[in-house]
């Protein structure tokens, strides 16, 4: 790729680097504080921790029941993503490759749901869940996540499957596959790149959610990790290094995923904005 700007572009690098620093620094600062003793932090907020001390992290991990919260998060997010990908790819395949009565109405219905934010349906949804006995249960939270992110998932899967030539499906039908066989043997494998992108995005959305989990999981042992983070503040208002450690623990999984999969995450976001 050749450059498209004149030598003046080096000037732009200055504000951009400063901004990059402003983006990274808060996290670096937090990680540094997590490694300090309380005394060190009070004496000087900025000095580098003189050693990698993990005892704050251990304290945060053990005292708030973080292991439990982490397990809650991993379990609900995994279940939600599996269901989202399954339902989303089934619907996307039907809406993009099959002709049937009412298909455009159904597609528009799914799109309309995109514009209904959770806050708008929060109260009635809580009531529906309570009537169904699903409040404060794992299936209830998983269902709520599926309902929340399914329209987006269907939208992306439909636009991806539209790019697949219909001849492939035709050929498979001539070979004697049923519609379901085409979905299982052809559409699922072909959809892998889109499923990966959408799956990671859905996982991030569910993982980062706090409002839905706060609403539907009132009891302490059902807390997800992010709800757990919100309770750190009250617990460690006087012990900033341990507070910072808890925040760090919660940030690490996303940081690791980002380092390995940022390409797919960005592709998913880009696809959501340019396709349709």
């Amino acid at each position, binding site marked *: 790729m050749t*450059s*498209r700007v004149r030598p003046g*572009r080096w000037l*732009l*690098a200055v504000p*951009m680097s400063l901004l*990059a620093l402003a983006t*990274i620094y*808060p996290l670096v*600062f937090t990680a540094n504080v997590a490694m300090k003793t309380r005394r060190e932090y009070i004496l000087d*907020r900025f000095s580098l921790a003189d050693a990698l001390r993990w005892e704050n992290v251990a304290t945060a991990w053990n005292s708030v029941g973080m292991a439990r919260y982490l397990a809650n998060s991993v379990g609900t997010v995994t279940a939600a993503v599996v269901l989202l990908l*399954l*339902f989303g790819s*089934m*619907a996307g395949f*039907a*809406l993009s*490759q*099959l*002709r*049937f009565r009412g298909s455009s109405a159904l*597609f528009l*219905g*799914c799109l309309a*749901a995109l514009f*209904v934010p959770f*806050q*708008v*349906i*929060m*109260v*009635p949804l809580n009531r*529906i869940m309570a009537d169904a006995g699903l409040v404060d249960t794992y299936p209830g939270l998983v*269902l709520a996540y599926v*309902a929340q992110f*399914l329209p987006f998932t269907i939208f992306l899967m439909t636009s991806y499957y*539209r790019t697949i030539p*219909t001849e492939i*499906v035709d050929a498979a*039908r001539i070979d004697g596959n*049923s519609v*379901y066989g085409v*979905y299982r043997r052809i559409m699922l494998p072909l959809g892998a790149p889109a499923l990966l992108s959408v799956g990671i995005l859905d996982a991030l959305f569910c993982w980062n*959610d706090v409002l839905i989990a*706060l*609403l539907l999981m009132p009891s302490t042992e059902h807390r997800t990790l*992010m709800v757990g*983070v*919100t309770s750190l*503040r009250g617990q460690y208002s006087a012990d*900033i290094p341990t*507070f910072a450690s808890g*925040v760090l623990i*919660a940030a690490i999984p996303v940081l690791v995923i980002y380092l390995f999969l*940022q390409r797919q*995450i960005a592709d998913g*976001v*880009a696809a959501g*904005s340019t396709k*349709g």
Partner: protein
Amino acid sequence: MTSVRPVVAGRTDRARHQRPALPGAAARRGRGARRSERLAPYVLLAPAVLVIVLLRLWPLLLGVNFSFTGDGDRDGTMVGLDNYRELLADPLFRGALRNVGLLVLLLPVAVAIPGLLATFIYLRVPGHRFYRSVYFFPAVLSPVIVGAIFNLLLAFDGPLNTVLGGVGIGPTDWLGDPDVAMFVVVGVHIWATFGMALVVFLAGFATLDASLLDAARVDGASLPQTIRHVIVPSLSRTIQFVFVTTMIGMLTSMFGLLYVMTSGGPEGSTYLPEYYIWIQQGQMNRPALASAASTVLFVVMLVVGLLQISLLRRGVREA
């Protein structure tokens, strides 16, 4: 650029017209349609439709209906517009709406920052790949984590005030001063989310015709001129999309930040409708009032979204 169509509807339309004749139909007719095959599309869609109708669209109707009923003693009875009257009389809710106005005013900033940065990255500033991955990172962090980090940085005895004190600026109570707190929370929200808009802009740039830029350079256009006359008109659809999604994001995804950073305080100055809904439904046990606030939020979103689309369209036509 002919007329700009709404982002989503326009595209689905076209995609549908371009869709070739679908498979299966012909083959099916040739072999005598089997019933299970005819029903297959509906079977494939059933779980998705069930979930969306039962847990998204039905609650929307239920909520609107619910907003006209009473709370507590009057639970289930129709009370007309009482909830809405009470909302408009509540200084907290009025403050929340004022804050929505503030968000709308700050919106151009939240769009311009990622737009400019995407332009620089697209023009291949040295190290553009590095910048892109750094800027995008906060966008994948939970608002709860972002809020907790900034609670540390912005504490009254925290690092930011220490630095400012070092250069002789007295400490500011960033999250405790009613005149400042909302701006701070919005600032943190922009810091945390501009990476998303940046990626969307870059995706828009990928569709840009590079020869236009070359032509502008040959004609000796300056960077601001190039942005104004080449980039903005070519990316009008992306810009519209970012405006609308950023607005929706500001109205519906700041809960985590508000909850962790200010809890609506100080003096109720950082309420947004979503936070008000949460408090009324959970803390105050006023679900019907909360539903009315939900309905108002939904209407505000629709109005702002439609206004934006029409304004931006007109702007593009005049440019």
